[in-house]
């Protein structure tokens, strides 16, 4: 093994974990409209579903911390994405569930103003969507 190939080998070792860790969908998160964000996560044609449960306050007094609890009752759900229609960058998060994980997540998000919140679930390669409006009294995008 030459010195050069050794260096290349270690270079690969160093580069590999970084590329794995940095899996972040820049296009989808950089999208400025909900439609673009949905397109970039491959969910433009999601079918409305009542089996996605969104628990959130009807009125959030503080837009800096809006609690949202999501669960999908669609069998075989492998992924849940949260899109806040009127935020400057609508896509707030995408959660992939494997092995024993249940399609459930509870998180706190910032909302700039009253907005529809869309939750997209992927099950068996198909996209489903549920929408819920959350009213915001004081916007929370300055945080």
């Amino acid at each position, binding site marked *: 093994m030459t010195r050069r190939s050794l260096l290349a080998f270690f270079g690969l070792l160093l580069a590999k974990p970084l590329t794995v860790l940095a899996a972040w969908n820049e296009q989808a998160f950089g999208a400025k409209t909900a439609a673009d964000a949905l397109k970039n996560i491959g969910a433009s044609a999601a079918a409305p579903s009542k089996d996605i449960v969104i628990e959130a306050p009807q009125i959030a007094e503080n837009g800096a911390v809006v609690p949202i609890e999501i669960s999908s009752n669609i069998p075989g759900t492998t992924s849940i994405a949260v899109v806040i229609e009127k935020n400057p960058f609508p896509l707030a998060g995408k959660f992939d569930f494997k092995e024993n994980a249940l399609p459930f997540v509870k998180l706190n998000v*910032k909302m700039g103003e009253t907005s529809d919140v869309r939750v997209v679930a992927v099950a068996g390669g198909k996209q489903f969507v549920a929408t819920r409006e959350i009213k915001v009294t004081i916007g929370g995008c300055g945080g």
Partner: protein
Amino acid sequence: MAGPMKMRATTTGGTTEVRVLMTHPMTTAQSGQALHFIQNITVKQNGKAVVEAEISQAVSRNPVFSFRLKGGAKGDKIEVSWLDNKGETNKIETAVA
């Protein structure tokens, strides 16, 4: 900047609930400060990834997440790690109670 994390994992009635808190400013560009936010979160159960998340700056400061696992036994090791847009990272491990 990688502040402390807290985590609790408990199993009841065939479901394990993991609740994790991360200390992080999660600053947006709208705030006039530098954009600084967690981008990736991984939850592992006994070394196997069970949840992989990508999040944006729209997640609130000092993020708190709950996740649920089917089954799970007392003593199972749960690890949660995060990576932010500046390459900072942190993780925490706990045993299911």
